[in-house]
């Protein structure tokens, strides 16, 4: 069982790589270099700020785009191209296929983020000339971004298991935006009454909590991130990802592949 999942995952990774996804790293590298050089000319205080803000935001956005663009095709493309037929006629369970696809894309994003992280730290080194204590919070911020990717990948996979690529992209992107304001949504739900309150609260708790995973601004200002938050966020991301994958498995298990 695990070997099949591992094989599907590594094949998904191979597909992403050969699809020239990793070329985005070149664009990113250029962006970071340009930023570092330009910012190096400005006052000393805010260079670090700009590099971290820009770097982490770029990592987040690039990764989100990749997660969505590859994720939407994970299942629907295989169905459309009928490559799935020869896979499922083998002793591969449908749920193994879904889980394998998830790990493949998550792995791609992790590798991508790893290289980007190097880019951010190189730029940071360039403007600050030496690493500081506060830099470890940048690592935490990056870790949170990877957690965001896991959630987004699982969500896109879920949509891809029953919806067309275009709709999947729309849904996933919408959830990303709404999820970034999830804390506001919960506050808003608390201010309403009656039936609206139930619906709003329900929605507010279902929506992925991307806002808590975005610590870019505070890390840029060298604020520490509490250990408790790291633990809670990790658990939350794990659980939410599992939920979305379960959803995908359940949908896919009963789907007629016409």
């Amino acid at each position, binding site marked *: 069982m695990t070997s099949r999942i591992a094989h599907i995952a590594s094949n998904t990774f191979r597909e992403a790589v050969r699809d020239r996804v990793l070329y985005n790293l070149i664009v990113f590298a250029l962006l970071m270099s340009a930023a570092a050089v330009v910012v190096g000319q400005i006052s000393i205080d805010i260079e670090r700020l700009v590099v971290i803000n820009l770097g982490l935001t770029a990592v987040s956005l690039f990764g989100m785009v990749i997660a969505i663009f590859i994720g939407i095709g994970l299942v629907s493309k295989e169905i459309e191209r009928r490559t799935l037929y020869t896979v499922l006629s083998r002793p591969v369970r449908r749920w193994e296929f879904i889980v394998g696809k998830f790990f493949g894309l998550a792995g791609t994003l992790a590798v991508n983020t790893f290289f980007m992280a190097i880019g951010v730290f190189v730029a940071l080194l360039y403007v600050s000339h030496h690493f500081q204590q506060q830099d470890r919070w940048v690592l935490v911020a990056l870790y949170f971004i990877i957690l965001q990717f896991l959630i987004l990948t699982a969500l896109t996979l879920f949509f891809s298991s029953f919806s067309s690529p275009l709709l999947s992209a729309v849904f996933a992107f919408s959830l990303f935006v709404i999820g970034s304001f999830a804390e*506001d949504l919960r506050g808003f739900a608390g201010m309403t009454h009656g039936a609206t309150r139930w619906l709003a609260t329900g929605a507010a*708790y279902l929506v992925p909590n991307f806002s808590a995973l975005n610590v870019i601004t505070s890390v840029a200002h060298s604020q520490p991130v509490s250990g408790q938050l790291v633990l809670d966020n990790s658990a939350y991301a794990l659980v939410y990802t599992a939920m979305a994958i379960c959803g995908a*498995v359940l949908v896919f*298990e*009963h789907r007629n592949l016409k």
Partner: protein
Amino acid sequence: MSRSQRVTVIFSVFLASSLIASVLLLRRVDQVRTGATLEEVLYISSPQALRRLSLGYNGLLADIYWTRAVQYYGNKHHDGARRFDLLAPLLEITTVLDPQLLVAYEYGANFLAPKPPNGAGMPDRAIALEEFGILNNPDAWQLYYNVGFIHYMELKNYAGAAEAFARGAQRPNAHPFLAMLAGKMAEHAGDRQMARMMWSTSYQTTKDINVRANAAAHLRALQVDEDVTNLEALNARYQQQTGRFPSSFSELEAAGLLRGTPLDPLGQSYKLMPDGRVELRTPDDFPFIEKGMPFDYTPPPSPKILPSD
């Protein structure tokens, strides 16, 4: 059970349990993060940059910051806080993102200017907020009213108030009260009648439930002050007539000084104290009162001025 059914059951159970777990963890994360999103407001050194970054969606972003401001004030107030540090930045960012959001300026006058625990105690910043609003909405009479309001209520600057009201009165479609307030300021500055007029104007012209509730609380307090003053005067008359203070309202009635039992604005009868003073039964329900409180009274930390109180 077929293989497919088994998979369905197992994954459904996983789904349900992870759903529950995610909700529980979410609540934990919210606790750890309380106010974290709001505190990031302090890092926005340039609201103008934020407006540019919002790529034309500044209206929506303004609404989000506005909602945060309302919640922030409501939560802080509910907890009996004495500091509302983030209210000013929240309102400033909201108004930079959407300068036409008039209700934000109303909040500035009603909740940013007054002293804690009713507000943030920053009248100067509130006036600066209003002036920014006037710059962007020169014909909005409400903003001039706000300026005058702050001058009058918090800064006791009656001349400044009169001037602001006069400015506002000249705007097209200005509320008729503005001219009247400007005119009466000279003789009635500081008296209860002015205050009542201003709070009535606020009450009638606002569309925000919190601002309206605040105005209502002030109007009730003014009513109480007037009632207590009048009743204590009647007590003095009674004492002159009979040599002692009355112990019940029926005695006052019998003496022909009163008709019926006087009720406070919330419908409860006043208390006659043996030393001739008049007190409220539930002073906690009446923030802003200057009369009618027991001797050693301390008001509650979070005054009941919002509908949610």
